[in-house]
């Protein structure tokens, strides 16, 4: 059987376990047979409307059973799916649609208003929307009239499967291209590492545009297990999330430390039966040991794994966390490389670092991105070619993450080489935040920085210098920036200042700004922003 493509397992399990649930959402289930048939109908509808192999297909949806149909429909038509955050500002959505030339967009009635605000998109066709938009449309009723047989599309595993956009330092997001081969390698790693079986119910907690979702959907499909799509409102409310784990009997979760710390502190865990939860994977940012220890104690039967990997090279290292000692406060290692990856730690001059020496982590992996869409400048910079034998250099991705190898072989994460930060697991380029603030008419200069927050993560703050004098403009500036960058990247607080502290070379001293703000923030009352 052909198992080289991301969507192959769905057709396989539609034959082997036809009635077994592939997806579950809000108490409703969709079987493998139904998912296979519905995604074939969507694929046929896309092709009938002119979609060609390798074309990008936007998926702009909330969590729903149709989201699963959209992913597999796009893939079966030979398309490259592009997850689009349903909470994205329209300006940013528009940028991505144009950047990778999306002409086929799968969405939902709930987002018809945002779609209607798109301009310069005369050739766009929207699927799954019945409410009127200015664009050509094919709704679900029409899609269901197409044949349930798979379209004849020839793909190989080197073809692209998805493009995932993330924060870019230039002020625009950048799209990482991933092949079927890379996605399957990631999916198989996950399915094997946590030993998934059809009995598992794996949460889809992270949004689709966050690469944890590749594990959620595709590792699960590798094993013929069930994806439990967690509604977005539930992911924001820890007490509803723990209720969801209980009622959906979720067995495996891959999420960020922020979600787990919130669950520990506000999830009323003692009032729920969470015994179904056999494995928690976490990643995206460091998990403070003091919180992790408490969580592990609250869930003594659950196994915990720290998964490291930028979205360019997902799950390239991992660490199965042993029971933590009471007084252990050493950071949790990111472990050792996964079986489909190799690592190289290099110093300033690209020479290899020894034990206990700090350097940049470079990764060679079968999960590695093909590069950034339409960004030859970046692609020339981020890959390191190292001669191994003959004329075939090994290609490594420069992660920008600083690590050191301990004497026991475990890697320890030490920080970033550049200005990318993680806030609640989301990747944010502070340069992009500054660009969004500085694009407001009143702003002369902007400086964004992070300070530690109370939830083991980092909060983004900003200081700005205004042109001339006038009213307090912070509200207007935040409102303006919210049209350009996602909500999670918006500064929680903006301070208007006359000037910034500067280093001797005249550069903005963002560290001093952060220190000043940390002090002020400590004295702020709860509820104030």
């Amino acid at each position: 059987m052909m198992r080289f493509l991301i969507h192959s397992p769905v057709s396989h399990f539609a034959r082997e376990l036809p009635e077994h649930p592939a997806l579950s959402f809000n108490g409703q289930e969709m079987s493998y047979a139904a998912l296979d048939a519905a995604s074939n109908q969507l694929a046929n509808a896309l092709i009938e409307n002119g979609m060609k192999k390798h074309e990008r297909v936007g998926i702009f949806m909330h969590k729903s059973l149709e989201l699963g149909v959209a992913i597999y429909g796009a893939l079966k038509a030979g398309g490259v799916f592009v997850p689009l955050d349903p909470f994205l500002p329209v300006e940013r959505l528009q940028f991505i649609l144009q950047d990778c030339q999306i002409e086929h967009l799968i969405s939902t009635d709930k987002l018809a208003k945002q779609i209607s605000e798109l301009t310069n998109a005369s050739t766009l066709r929207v699927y799954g929307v019945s409410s009127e938009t200015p664009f050509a449309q094919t709704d679900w009723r029409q899609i269901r009239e197409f044949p349930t047989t798979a379209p004849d599309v020839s793909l190989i595993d080197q073809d692209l499967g998805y493009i995932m956009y993330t924060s870019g330092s230039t002020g625009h997001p950048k799209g990482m291209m991933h092949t079927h081969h890379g996605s399957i390698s990631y999916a198989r790693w996950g399915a094997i590492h946590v030993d998934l079986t059809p009995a598992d119910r794996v949460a889809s907690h992270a949004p689709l545009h966050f690469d944890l979702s590749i594990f959620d959907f595709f590792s699960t499909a590798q094993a013929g297990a069930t994806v439990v799509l967690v509604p977005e409102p539930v992911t924001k409310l820890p007490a509803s999330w723990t209720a969801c784990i209980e009622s959906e009997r979720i067995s495996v979760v891959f999420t960020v430390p922020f979600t787990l710390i919130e669950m520990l502190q506000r999830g009323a865990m003692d009032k729920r039966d969470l015994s179904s939860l056999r494995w928690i994977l976490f990643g995206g940012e460091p998990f403070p040991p003091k919180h992790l220890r408490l969580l592990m104690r609250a869930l003594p039967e659950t196994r915990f794994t720290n998964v490291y990997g930028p979205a360019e090279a997902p799950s390239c290292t991992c660490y199965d966390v042993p029971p933590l000692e009471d007084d252990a406060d050493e950071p949790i290692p990111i472990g050792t490389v996964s079986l489909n990856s190799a690592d190289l730690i290099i110093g300033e001059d690209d020479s290899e670092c020894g034990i206990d020496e700090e350097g940049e982590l470079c990764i060679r992996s079968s999960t590695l991105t093909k590069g950034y869409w339409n960004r030859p400048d970046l692609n020339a910079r981020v890959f390191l070619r190292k001669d191994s034998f003959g004329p075939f250099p090994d290609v490594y991705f420069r992660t920008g993450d600083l690590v050191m190898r301990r004497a026991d072989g475990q890697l320890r994460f030490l920080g970033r080489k550049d200005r990318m930060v993680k806030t609640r697991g989301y990747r944010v380029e502070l340069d992009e935040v500054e660009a969004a603030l500085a694009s407001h008419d009143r702003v002369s200069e902007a400086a964004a920085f992070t300070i530690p927050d109370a939830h083991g993560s980092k909060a983004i703050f900003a200081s700005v210098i205004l042109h001339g004098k006038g009213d307090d403009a912070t509200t207007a500036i935040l409102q303006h920036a919210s049209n350009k960058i996602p909500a999670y990247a918006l500064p929680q607080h903006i301070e208007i200042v006359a000037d910034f502290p500067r280093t001797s070379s005249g550069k903005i001293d963002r560290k001093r700004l952060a220190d000043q703000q940390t002090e002020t923030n400590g004295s702020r009352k709860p509820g104030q922003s």
Partner: protein
Amino acid sequence: MTNQLLILDYIRTEILHDAGCSIGVDDELLLDGVLDSLAVMRLVAFLEANTGTAIPPEDVTLENFRSIGAIAAYLDQPSASP
């Protein structure tokens, strides 16, 4: 000020940074992306400080926090401890 107005005012000024924006008492706060998880935490802290009501974590559910109307109804119910 009624609880509804208090919540509306806080969401407009502190969360959406747009004092004039239109938002209805029955609008979906979480599905429409008005509140994210951090904003929910800030809103709960604000409500506890300004209404004198203790809000236990298990009460911060979709049922009680889906809309401004739902939050106000939750705060107004007699069992909420003043």
